[in-house]
């Protein structure tokens, strides 16, 4: 009995420490966003203010960076999700002997340090753009940032989609083909709807990874700027509570996102349960009525 209690207490204590470590620094930073001193200070708390938020929104560099980040993020999603889909389908269909080499190549960007991806992207595309004479179109910070980030984000997307693709029941495809569907029809009407949740989460992950990336972007962005590179410049110069204000906004947005995702998921689960119950009820009714399908719900 007592040993069980001790175990429980220790677990509780450990969880407390862990989450204090996880949230402590962010909480302190959050407090500094509402405090008046010019240098981010949590204690003593002088007076409540929202001026750092106003300062943030009036910061032109920051807003330009934000805009660029959003464009790059959308570009990466448009590139990485289709490529990830193609790569995962090729992965399931490639002949077994080549699969391990193919896997090695496609997964390598996940394991490569981001700095190296950024450098190699810039060096390669600079020479490539010069040789092909496309320098004015290709050798641009925004485009290189999209290419550099897509290099590893494609692999994320591939892994996410692949996980769902492996649960795909080939019998569905066979059935559609037997009923006279063509291969493209099977792809659009069976495979894509089946993969939709995975495609959706791949898109979200792609956008968020692109948005918060620093290591690759700082090299690939050249003379342009994204929100994160602007932030890095600010932190290097010194500190200012409007950065805390930005962090507060990011935390608030991700909290709202996480909570609405949770609510959605619970509702979906409840619906699935209800649907299952209804199906069982319908089945019973069908048996009782001797084949006449009841129009329940």
């Amino acid at each position, binding site marked *: 009995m007592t040993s069980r209690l001790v175990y429980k207490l220790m677990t509780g204590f450990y969880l407390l420490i862990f989450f204090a470590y996880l949230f402590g620094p962010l909480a302190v930073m959050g407090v500094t966003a509402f405090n008046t001193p010019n240098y981010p200070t949590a204690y003593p708390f002088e007076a409540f203010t929202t001026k750092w938020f106003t300062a943030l929104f009036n910061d032109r560099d920051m807003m330009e960076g934000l805009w660029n980040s959003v464009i790059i993020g959308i570009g990466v999603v448009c590139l990485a999700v289709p490529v990830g889909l193609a790569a995962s389908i090729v992965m399931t269909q490639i002949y077994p002997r080549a699969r391990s080499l193919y896997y090695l190549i496609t997964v*390598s960007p996940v394991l490569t340090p981001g700095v190296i991806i950024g450098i*190699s992207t810039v060096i390669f595309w600079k020479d490539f753009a010069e040789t092909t004479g496309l320098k004015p179109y290709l050798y641009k910070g925004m485009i290189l940032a999209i290419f550099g980030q*897509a290099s590893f984000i494609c692999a994320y997307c591939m892994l996410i989609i692949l996980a769902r693709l492996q649960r795909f029941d080939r019998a569905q495809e066979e059935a559609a083909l037997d009923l006279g569907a063509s291969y493209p029809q099977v792809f659009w009407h069976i495979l894509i709807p089946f993969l939709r949740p995975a495609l959706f989460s791949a898109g979200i992950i792609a956008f968020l990874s692109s948005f918060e990336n620093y290591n690759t972007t700082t090299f690939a962005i050249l003379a342009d700027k994204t929100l994160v590179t602007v932030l890095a410049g600010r932190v290097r110069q010194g500190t200012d509570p409007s950065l805390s204000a930005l962090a507060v906004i990011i935390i608030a947005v991700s909290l709202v996102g996480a909570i609405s995702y949770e609510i959605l998921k619970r509702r979906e689960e409840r619906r699935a349960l209800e649907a299952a119950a209804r199906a069982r009820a319908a089945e019973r009714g069908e048996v009782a009525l001797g084949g006449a399908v009841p129009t329940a719900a």
Partner: protein
Amino acid sequence: MSSRGLVYLIPIAVIAIFWAMAVWEKRRGLDDPSRKGFVQQNGILLSTFFVLAVAFWTLFLVVLPYMYMVQESFHPSLWPKDRGGPKDVLTLEHYKYFIYGLQTGTEASYNVTHLYAFWKTLLISLCVTFANFCLCYPLAYYLAQSAGPQKLRLLLIALIVPFWVNEILRAFAFRVLLSSNGLINTALINMGLIDTSFDFLRADIGLYLGLSYAYLLIMVFPLYNGIEALDKNQIEAARDLGASWWRIHKDVVMPFAKPGIASGCTMVFMLAAGSLAAPQFLGGPNTLWFTSIVYDFFFQAFNWSRGSAYAFILLLACIGFVLLVLRVFKVSLGEIAR
């Protein structure tokens, strides 16, 4: 043929090898006869799209840039007008520089600063990896085996939310916390433990904390995935047979979660060794992180080829580490990258 052109030939050769393997396999009849060809299975339009998309990604975004960077590291750093000229020869000078530094005198000397930075980067990354493993293992075990479904979901969300705050802002949070008039120093002074504020950043404590903090989640999730699949009955059985909690973890849980452990450790090590934000913003003035050296070659010395050489050295070290982990844990690459 210059070495730059050669880079474009290598992928073509690799594709040719793939092709030859496919043909060979078909001729040997190893293929399952019921299997349809790729084009037949997807239709001509989709097959073209798949092949083009994958080729663009693997060739232009992955393989060619890497190989281009490697060949660049064997060229001297030149003005644009000299590129491709007679001065543009293959050379090992950047790698020699990494080991010996600038050879000014006749006697042999070593590039102590950079070698030390390299060594220190790897060592600190290793320590951070180990610390994170110790910190995250109990949590992962708790999440996977003890927590109820409601609590589990809440804890997972609590883990994910701080992770969406980007690296720079997390480093900034630690700066605020640890600065000379930050909360921790104020608290320590008020408690009477120290008289003047302690410079956590100069002592590199900020760097260690920041690195460990940044990659906590990277460690928790692979461990959680690894442990989650373990059947509770196995643990019960071990307990009934009288195993101590230490033996349960050492002989039952850890061997089972080996792929997860290997995956978490490699990811954290790679990310820590390749991190740029934490060393830049939290490192003390005397700390030289290897990626910061590479960064300076690019943005201050404009010596791209030497930067490439250093980046390649870092990449080799990381690959070496992954291979070592694979060997030690006896797991395959497929199990790690999930």
